[in-house]
């Protein structure tokens, strides 16, 4: 019974990871790639790690797995935000079919620095 649950969870986790890999190859733009990979990969790896906790059924392994999942869910959005912000500042181009750019004019593209800078 536990084996079937582990197999189902591992299959869905692997499929989510594969979707993230297809997304990072097929998406036309850096920002769409960040958007697709962060969400899909954190869910897929969370499911696969949860399989490990179900398989071993020990308190130490479960604690370790929950710590890793919590850390991934905490840090994946932060690092995606930082990379996207750095990419916008150094001038990585947006997709040609982008409709709205909320940050247009907020950063000076010639100086590549914030207009309302903290310093």
């Amino acid at each position, binding site marked *: 019974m536990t084996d079937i649950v582990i197999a189902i969870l591992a299959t869905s986790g*692997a499929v989510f*990871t594969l979707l993230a890999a297809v997304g990072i190859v097929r998406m036309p733009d850096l920002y769409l790639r960040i958007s697709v990979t962060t969400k899909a990969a954190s869910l897929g*790896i969370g499911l696969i*790690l949860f399989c490990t906790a179900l398989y071993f059924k020990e308190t130490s392994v479960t604690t370790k797995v929950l710590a890793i999942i919590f850390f991934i869910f905490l*840090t994946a959005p932060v690092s995606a935000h*930082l*990379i996207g912000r*750095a*990419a916008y500042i150094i001038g990585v181009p947006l997709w040609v079919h982008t409709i709205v750019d909320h940050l247009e004019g907020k950063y000076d593209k010639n100086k590549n620095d914030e207009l309302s800078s903290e310093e």
Partner: protein
Amino acid sequence: MSLHEYLFYIIMPILALSVLLIFVRFVIGPSITDRVVALDLLIITGMGLIAVYSILTDQPTFLDIAMIFALLAFLSSVAFSFYLKQRRKND
């Protein structure tokens, strides 16, 4: 088909295929930030491989390496984004 055979013959090839696809983007990525994102995703997929391998070999000790990989992925992406911004600012 037992659970170990299923994990070995179905799940591991799917994860290996996704590592290959991410590596394609790591090689052809037009800008450096694409490569940073691909490296982050490579490390996270490696954590999934480690988790499946720890089930296959009955060794839960491998999960410590997965935890260290999570720390390294976060630190490397933060450091890369910080230095990319600093590099352009000092030109």
